[in-house]
């Protein structure tokens, strides 16, 4: 005896279910914003610092958060901090720009021939593990006690990170996209500029971010070793100088500046670039 089942055809219910779509409450929306959560953590850390420093009560070893902030604003608006930051950033941007240009040239050579690829791979595996600061003594002999040496070590720290990431980005561009680009009749540099670079942009951006962080660290370290040239040092020199004069709140203010600039570049500049490019394109979530 076969088992027979009754067929069912239903009309969809209307209005009986609560909501299909409803906006989240304000609290939920605020909690969903990454920067709000991060700001809360920052405030908590600041309070912790303040509390610990007050309890320790030794401004020579560990000044309070408020003293550091005070030194920061005094240094920025009245003292030398602003010009120190400007000097540092100028050197940094010059080195960063030269590094990116060198990386671009190297990567274009690398993708245009197999020998070029070998060259890039060999050079990056040789020089990438070499800390830029280790080249400083050599740079001092070659370029003298001045900006030239610092720019040289910054270029070294940017170049390999950017070149490596850009190249691996180019290699991971899908074969379909390559064929599409060639189908449009694009060749040579136009093909690189209009297909490869945008398609590899997530990797390129990662390289730029890593390169920036490397450059920033290298710069401060190099300035600590010899910051002064014709009387105007950078931020690293500011830290070193104030340590020698036992102006410890100023040392902390200098370190805070390093951190703040790092945070702003990472979370504002690069975040903005990301949201305008790879996030908008759905290439990175």
């Amino acid at each position, binding site marked *: 005896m076969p088992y027979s089942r009754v067929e069912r055809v239903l009309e969809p219910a209307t209005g009986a279910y609560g909501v299909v779509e409803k906006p989240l409450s304000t609290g939920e929306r605020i909690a969903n914003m990454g920067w709000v959560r991060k700001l809360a953590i920052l405030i908590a850390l600041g309070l912790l610092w303040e509390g610990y420093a007050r309890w320790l009560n030794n401004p020579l070893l560990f000044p309070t958060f408020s003293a550091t902030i005070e030194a920061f604003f005094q240094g920025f608006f009245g003292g030398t901090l602003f010009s120190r930051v400007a000097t540092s950033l100028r050197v940094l941007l010059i080195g960063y720009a030269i590094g990116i240009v060198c990386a671009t040239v190297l990567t274009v050579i690398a993708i245009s021939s197999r020998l070029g690829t070998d060259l890039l791979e060999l050079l990056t595996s040789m020089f990438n593990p070499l800390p830029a600061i280790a080249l400083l003594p050599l740079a001092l002999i070659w370029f003298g006690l001045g900006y030239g040496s610092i720019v040289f070590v910054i270029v070294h720290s940017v170049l390999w990170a950017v070149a490596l990431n850009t190249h691996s980005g180019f290699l991971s561009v*899908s074969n*379909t*996209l390559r*064929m*599409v680009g*060639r*189908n*449009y*009749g*694009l060749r040579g540099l*136009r093909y690189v500029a*209009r*297909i490869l670079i*945008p*398609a590899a*942009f997530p990797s390129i951006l990662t390289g730029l971010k890593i390169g920036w962080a490397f450059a920033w660290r290298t710069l401060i370290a190099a300035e600590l070793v010899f910051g002064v040239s014709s009387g105007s040092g950078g931020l690293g020199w500011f830290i070193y100088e104030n340590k020698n004069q036992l102006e410890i709140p100023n040392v902390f203010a200098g370190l805070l500046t390093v951190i703040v600039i790092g945070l702003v570049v990472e979370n504002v500049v690069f975040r903005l670039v990301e949201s305008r*490019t790879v996030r*908008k*394109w*759905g*290439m990175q979530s």
Partner: protein
Amino acid sequence: MAELMRAAVNDPAVGAGPAPLLDVRGVTLQYKTKEYLVTATYRVDFQVMRSDRFVLLGPSGCGKSTLLKAVGGYLQPVEGEIRMKGAAIGPPGPDRMMVFQEFDQLLPWRTVLGNVMFPLTASGRLAGRAAVEKARDVIARVGLEKFADNYPHTLSGGMKQRVAIARGMAMEPDILLMDEPFASLDALTRRKMQDDLLELWEGTRFTVLFVTHSIPEAIRIGSRILLLSPHPGQVKAELNSVPPGTDGAIIASLERRIHDMLFAEPVEDAHT
């Protein structure tokens, strides 16, 4: 086998007629993998006439995609020649627009409109307003005018393939090369896309070279079907398909006929 060859020769469409748009003669294609030199096709001949919907049909390993890439200019034949409008084909170019199977064929950094416009402007065919108008017109024809400013990652698979087809059509190429464009779509969408492609074709009667491994798809899409046998790909038969809307029984019998031809010999798995 011999009977099939004779049938093909006696076919009126192969006889003297207008000069073919695409003439593939004795084409042997080989490519290298890391370990093998693979012969993808061996001495394949076929002619595509203007406004043909020419389908290359065969099981995997019959070299149909490789053949399409050779027509696209991505691969040089080791033997034989491929001619377009009487001249040997050159490197890849916008006169032979390709539509691929993969959804990632759209440029993710450009909107739908940008994607359709890109080949127009990159090849210098059109510029400025003219390119925008042309692109909008074609996008409307594939039914995506509401999505012109969307980025590809916000579209469904079927919509992405529509954009790719629009991009190909906007260039008004001599021939549109389609490499299993619907193979990654679900069955319902696939069916709809096939109907829509036929409708688009009715509008402008562009020439299509279409690769598929699905017999029903070949019959629906194609006006003429080239059957290829695998390892290496060789022409097994060249058949006329039936017009859209033909009686189901006739389609079923053609389907069976093709099926029997393709699977007459047991399929050997050489490279697995």
